[in-house]
């Protein structure tokens, strides 16, 4: 009893205490009731994913998904599996699918991270895009990383003479290289704004997947349509999709596959020539057991630096020029491949690489031709139907368009969109003026130098009909014979030898020299053939002189045999192209030469009286060998009176100011006018300041000139002609300047900036037809 009383007292005390305390707050650490189960639990909560549930259970992903991590599960519903079994008659149930294949399928339906529907559409490499901002035209990250990755990649390799290592079938090689997997596979997710931003249409989706958008809010997971809203789970979301999606293959896997109705093996052989294996120490040491000293395979990175993109990599890279991007660009960029079937490639070879003086098939062609063919079928960006019509840049930076009729295979790969065609893409390097150089044997040195100098894109550019290129090149044999253009294979240098009687001096040809050399040998249009001589600008800013009487073509200086040779040669080019679409190509025996005599020296030497007058008029700085009124950045046409003409007007007696005006009237500004009649007739501005000038601005006197074939005529004020300049040895004398002054150049950069014609009557403004 005493004890009872004791405890009763205690109980009373305790209850009093407890009464003072407020009710216990809710247990904030308890799992909230509203928190959904994990992904697998949520999937099994409904009956529409019964088949997919079996898949997860067979592959062990039931446990994984219900343990940790964060996922978005694109779960094919039961109807999707029915369809899948219809398409795969060998399988009647999930149990029939071999486990490795099933695992791949399952992993490809599991995407890393929890993505809501809104989030699937509003991501870029820089992070979230504000979906409310309708003006936002940032690119969309439309790809997502799945759990599927190709582990244990092995590539059989063999050594090649030309270019290190080539890939061969692993079964055909006694040695192989294991490649570190760079990433899990990505999967594209299509939605309207993605197509809108790239100016594509929803048909472009249909083009690949043969399905159509029913409304603008549709989301497709590859070919599967997402049905209904996302299903929330503690560690992610679940989407109901109406197709079982087969894991996408990368570009390399697609062309390496064996098909019954087609084969891309020839094309595969081509790309196999361009791998680069780089040892990856970190990945090698990262392999289980490596740190314990156990034997592990060396792991390599496989890339294709010569090709437009890395065919085997799951991580796609941004196009060239995209800078300062964050690490994960794969979500935004995808590549493209248009692979020719073996037949298509053969057809291309037959057409462009026949035997004879041509390479006789692609196998015999040099590596860069192989690379061009390979790259012509690749693109940094994925290729949609819209691109096929409008044209797209391929890996050779050619704008190409492909006929839809030629497409026999469409597939949206994991790193590239893929189109198989029965018509190969003709590289522009073949169809343009560079064609003969690339396709014929005997120009390999030049071909290589053109690429080295970076001129190929310019040369193969499409041209309007009246501006077709004329490309003049020497053959390998010719340049070797006179040593004017040598390629040293050992050092990779280009050289020229100046050969004299007793010695040969070696000059290095730099990349700049190469560029100058070639640019000087490309006329920007073809001659008309009317005038005795035609002066056609080349891409270097000089002129090529076409003698229509003799057929000779030369630069503004005499052509010499060999590099800077002492012996003059007459070059009659021989056309070698078949049917280039942007010009014609000629073989020449010696490189053209160009004058570097300045206008000052030219007048001083050829027209001493006129020159003396200029000095007298104080228009020359003799110490600097310069005229005060001549700008280096302008072109001039000079009509230099001979001594008789000067005497006739007693120019030397004129007061200084008048003399200056007299002299300056003989210089035309801005324009080089030849006697080939190419320049239009009309008023040309002289360097002479007109009387109508004011302190606010100088007006130059314009004289009326009529250009005709082999003649330049000056119109008189009173009508008729005041004077005529006829084509002769004393006309069309070109003066130039060296732009690469101060630099050691084997082929210096020149610019013809003035032409001088002898005139036998001094030009008096008072008598000439001048513009009012």
């Amino acid at each position, binding site marked *: 009893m005493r004890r009872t009383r004791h405890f009763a007292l205690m109980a009373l005390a305790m209850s009093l205490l407890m009464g003072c305390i407020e009710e216990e707050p809710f247990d*904030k*650490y308890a799992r909230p009731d509203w928190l959904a189960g994990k992904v697998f639990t949520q999937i099994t909560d409904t009956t529409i994913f019964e088949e997919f549930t079996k898949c997860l259970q067979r592959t062990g992903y039931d446990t994984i998904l219900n343990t*940790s991590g964060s996922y978005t599960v694109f779960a094919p519903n039961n109807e999707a599996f029915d369809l899948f079994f219809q398409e795969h008659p060998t399988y009647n149930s999930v149990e029939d699918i071999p486990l490795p294949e099933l695992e791949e399928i399952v992993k490809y339906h599991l995407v*890393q991270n*929890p993505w809501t529907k809104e989030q699937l559409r509003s991501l870029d490499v820089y992070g979230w895009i504000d979906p409310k901002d309708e003006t936002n035209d940032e690119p969309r990250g439309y790809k997502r990383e799945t759990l599927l990755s190709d582990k244990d990649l092995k590539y059989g390799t063999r050594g090649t003479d030309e270019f290190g290592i080539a890939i061969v079938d692993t079964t055909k090689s006694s040695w192989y290289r294991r490649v570190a997997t760079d990433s899990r596979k990505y999967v594209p997710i299509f939605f309207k704004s993605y197509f809108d931003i790239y100016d594509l249409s929803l048909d472009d989706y249909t083009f690949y997947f043969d399905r159509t958008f029913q409304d603008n809010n549709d989301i497709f997971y590859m070919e599967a349509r997402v049905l209904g809203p996302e299903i929330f789970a503690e560690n992610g979301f679940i989407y109901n999709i109406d197709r079982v999606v087969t894991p996408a293959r990368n570009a390399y896997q697609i062309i390496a596959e064996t098909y019954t109705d087609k084969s891309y093996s020839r094309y595969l052989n081509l790309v196999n020539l361009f791998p680069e294996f780089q040892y990856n120490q970190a990945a090698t040491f990262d392999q289980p057991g490596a740190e314990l000293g156990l034997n592990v395979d060396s792991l390599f990175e496989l890339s294709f630096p010569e090709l437009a993109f890395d065919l085997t990599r799951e991580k796609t890279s941004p196009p060239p020029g995209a800078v300062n991007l964050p*690490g994960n660009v794969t979500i935004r960029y995808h590549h493209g491949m248009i692979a020719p079937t073996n037949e298509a490639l053969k057809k291309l070879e037959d057409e462009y690489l026949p035997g004879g003086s041509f390479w006789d098939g692609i196998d015999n062609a040099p590596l860069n031709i192989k690379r061009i063919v390979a790259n012509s079928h690749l693109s940094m960006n994925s290729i949609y139907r819209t691109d096929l019509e409008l044209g797209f840049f391929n890996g050779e930076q050619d704008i190409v368009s492909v006929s839809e009729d030629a497409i026999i295979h469409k597939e949206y790969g994991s790193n590239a969109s893929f189109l198989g065609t029965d018509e190969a893409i003709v590289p522009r390097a073949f169809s343009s003026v560079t064609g003969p150089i690339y396709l014929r044997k005997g120009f390999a040195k030049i071909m290589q130098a053109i690429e080295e100098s970076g001129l190929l894109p310019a040369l193969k550019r499409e041209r309007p009909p009246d501006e077709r290129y004329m490309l003049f090149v020497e053959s390998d044999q010719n340049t070797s014979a006179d040593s004017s253009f040598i390629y040293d294979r050992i050092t990779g240098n280009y050289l020229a030898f100046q050969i004299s009687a007793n010695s040969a001096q070696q000059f290095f040809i730099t990349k700049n020299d190469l560029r100058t050399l070639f640019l000087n040998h490309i006329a920007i249009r073809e001659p008309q053939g009317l005038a005795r001589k035609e002066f056609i600008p080349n891409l270097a800013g000089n002129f090529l002189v076409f003698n229509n009487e003799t057929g000779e073509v030369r630069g503004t200086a005499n052509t010499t045999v060999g590099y800077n040779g002492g012996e003059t040669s007459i070059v009659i080019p021989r056309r070698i192209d078949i049917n280039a679409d942007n010009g014609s190509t000629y073989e020449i025996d010696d490189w053209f030469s160009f004058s570097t005599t300045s206008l000052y020296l030219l007048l001083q030497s050829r027209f001493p009286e006129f020159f003396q007058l200029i000095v007298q008029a104080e228009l020359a700085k003799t110490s600097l060998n310069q005229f005060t009124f001549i700008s280096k950045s302008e072109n001039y046409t000079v009509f230099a009176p001979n001594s008789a003409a000067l005497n006739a007007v007693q120019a030397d007696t004129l007061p200084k100011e008048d003399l200056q005006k007299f002299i300056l009237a003989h210089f035309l500004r801005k324009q080089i006018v030849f006697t080939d009649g190419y320049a239009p007739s009309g008023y040309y501005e002289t360097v002479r300041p007109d009387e109508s000038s004011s302190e606010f601005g100088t007006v130059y006197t314009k004289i009326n000139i009529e250009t005709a074939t082999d003649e330049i005529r000056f119109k008189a004020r009173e009508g008729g002609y005041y004077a005529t300049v006829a084509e002769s040895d004393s006309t069309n004398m070109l003066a130039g300047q060296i732009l690469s002054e101060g630099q050691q150049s084997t082929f210096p950069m020149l610019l013809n900036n003035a032409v001088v014609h002898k005139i036998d009557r001094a030009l008096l403004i008072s008598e000439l037809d001048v513009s009012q």
Partner: protein
Amino acid sequence: MRKLKPILMLLMALATVTSTYGQDVVLRGRVIDAADELPVIGANIIEYDDENRIINGTITNVNGDFVLEMRDASHAVKVSVIGYETKEIPVTGGQQTIKLAPANLEIEEVTVTAKAQSDYSLTNIAERDNASSTVKVNLADMADAGISSASDALQGKVSGLDIIAVSGDPGSGSQLVIRGLSSMGNSQPLIVIDGIPQMRVSSSFNLSSSDAEDISNLVNIALQDIKSIEILKDAASTAVYGSQGADGVLLIETFKGRMGQVQFDYQYKSSMNIQPPAIPMLDGNEYIMLQLEQWHNNYGVLNNQNEIQYITYDRDFKDFYNYSANTDWIGAITQNAMTHDHYFKVSGGGEKTRYFTSFSYVDEGGTTINTSSKRFSTRINLDYFLSRNLLFSVQFNYTNNRTDGNLELDRGDGKTRNIREMAYIKSPNMSIWEYDPYGNLTGEYFTPINSYQGNGEIYFNPVAVAKLGKKDNIRNNLQNTFRLRYKITDWLTLHEVVSFQYAGTKYENYLPYNAIGADWLAWTINKAEESNNINSSIRTETRMTFEAPFKNENHVLSGAASWITNQESYEWMNIQSNRTPSTDIQDPAIDAQINWIGGGSGETRQLGAVGNLNYKYKDKYLLQTIIRADAHSSFGANYRWGVFKGLSGGWRFSSEPWLENVGWLGESMFRVTWGVAGRQPWDAYARFATYASSSTGSYIESPAIVPQQIQLNNLRWESSTTTDIGVELNLFDDRFFIEGIIYNKVTEDLLFYEYPIPYSSGYGDLTFYNGGELENRGWELMTDFKIVRNENWLWSINFNTSQNSNRFNNLPDNFNREASTSIGNEQYPRRVVEGEAIGSFFGFRYLGVWSRDEDVVARNASGEIIYDNEGEPVPLSYKGTYIFKGGDPIYEDINHDGIIDLNDVVYIGDSNPDFMGGFGTTLKYKNYTFSTSFHYRLGFDIVNGVAIQTEGMLNKNNQSKAVLRRWRVQGQDDENMLPRAYMWHPASNLGSDRYVEPGDYLRLINMKIAYRLPANVCQKLNIRSMNITASARKMFTFTRYSGQDPEVGQNAQDPFWIGFDYANTPPPKILTLSLSIGI
């Protein structure tokens, strides 16, 4: 007894006056037991002079025979031995047979309430007449409870005394604050043990732990040695300690020997320390989910694959097994531990000599792994009456304390992190032990150099650091006090005290390479550190006390005058090296790479003069005055002397004739006190200009020194003035005791440490600066009700409460009132405002979570949406740089400008309790005792620092399970939902009232059931007494606070302090079984 013999002989020799005279008488005889007539061996035969001084003596041999040559036949001779009645024998020649009767004295366990003034007191005021505010707590009842320190025992016992356990780790101290924070320095009361103030830390070395260090003096006394603790709360009483008394004084009195038969007491206490459940943290699986979600919500995709691979739960990852664990880090570093406490004492004495000796050994296990504390202490208190007027006392105390702790490692920002904090934030998906890629254990701790969270030194493996690291602290304390009391006349007494104190502390730290993830070149590899600190002091006290020189009984005058000197010195050295060749070699002095060697020393001197006068008229009217002047070497000539004073008046109104007939009124008093006490800076050299080698050691290639500290000639005492009005009532035959006090304490000339000054002065700060005024006011109530009191039953209830509010009355000139205007995540803008309390919180008002993106719009004061020029709703942003989205927290836009910034910061709470105190009850029935005591603090707020760290979801730290309630999808609007997870969110975890929680708690701190063996049973067992006690400590805490423990300490050093719960080790629940045997 034999051990005492040489001491006694020595004392006798000292006391013997050499001048002898008179004829010699030789006494011969045999001493036998009166009962069995057997010889008594070792009995003392002592010759006393007229003044009762010992002149000569001898001891009986094995036959009980003795021979004593007397110096003077007129002297008395007494025979005494412990266990027998003392007997005076006749001085006659010839053989005597002396029969000694056994002493039947049995001293019951009675609590002696000292009515007379203590010898140790400086004031000579009888306890009954004390008019100032003091409380004396008898600790005898606590000795068998499961507490190991006096501070534990005092918690909740005394109104106005706020005791907060710093940490639940063994050997860690407590914070004691009397009547609120009143200083910018160390607000810890002065500890006085048996009249000797205990040394204070006086160097700047290891300041961070000085709070706990000071109070560890309390820990260092065996609890069983403490007879009582008296708490002096008002300045009228603390003024007697002058410059050290401003924070209150705790007077600890230890047991002394008492006359009687020798008594042996042994007590064994065994305690189980049970770790309270930790905050539930996410397991590895949940952590991975959370981290992925954080990254996803910020960036969408995870960019850095190297970083992400650890949390993708990828079974192909080679470290999958190391990063897919579900490690309960907190569980791994905590344990339930045992404490063993052995205590043995011997006490006794005769008329001349009384002795008390104790030995104590406590082995306390910590609830954090690898923490423990072992303490050995011994105490000898010896009183020897040289004569009727002359008492000589010796007190000797030695303590050896060894604490094993865990290293705290640098966390990369200059601060350190302990293993518990690490365990809270450590990725739970990391395993403790390392696995190879195939899932086999390698036998090593998993300590990668770089993990998902970062650097392996900063994000270390707490289990590895605890198990492999070493942080030992060995402390030896020695105190020796000699006292002489000479009663010059009946009313005048001279006291002379000389006391030596010595404390040696040694720290030994070692961090082996395999405890952390660091490469071999890191300087933390095999890091060894050792430091030694020695503090010593000599104190002398000369005191003259007098009392009642008048014959008139109406007037009683007493008083004292004292002259005190004190000299303290310290020295320290520290050596730190790394890369010892083996983890087995942990001494920094071996030929390793020395990182640092340093040392320092210092000395302070203090003089004090105290005088007090106590006057009592008709035993009813009391007036007590005190004045003390102190000089301290910390101050320059201008302010070297400080004067402290006190005045108290008491009116024992119950003695008034007109109340004599009120039968229920016992002795009661009304009192008023006023006093001024002081505080000196802790740094012995604060006032000196100092110079140091320039940071590079040279200037333009020449050796150079630079000024470092300004000369402070006008540095002065901080003074604290207290006014106190109280009433003390004893009612109903002393059954009800009630004491109520109101007080006001104003502290002026506050000592600010490192007070910032403009850099244009050439210095960054003044080491100390006097300025400002801080006021504490409040009231206290203590009650004790003896509800039932009869032969078999005793039931009493005690209750105390107090309220204190503090505020800055004014702040020093140029004082920067804002310590931080930073409003980033986990930051509270801090400021002090004149007229407001220290510890006020400012921050944002948290209103929940935005359910969806569209909801996040700015609204005007009427709640209408604000539109911009284009008619679009203005989004709500954080500082105009981040627009809030669905899932982000809602902060109240106080000024309705659509921008959450500093302008929206408001007052959101304060850390000072409104009420605190305790209550308890004791129920005794015959030999059974049951008692409980509670402690409470009410009306204060805590910033739940653990929740901030573990619910923010914006970094890689592990989070608590509370985050399972996080927002996850647009439109989600569930109850008690937390904001979304978002890596590096700029504003999802701002300092707001989201984390400010009421800290109110009521804690059952002690519960005890004791049983005392009945006397008759003891007699049969041939023992004196035997007690068995079961007690439980801190078993229940009633609180709404969601953190680990609402017992959050204060930091008086920082005026911007706010009560932040940093998750120290929570106090364990302790179950104790105690057995005491007395023989």
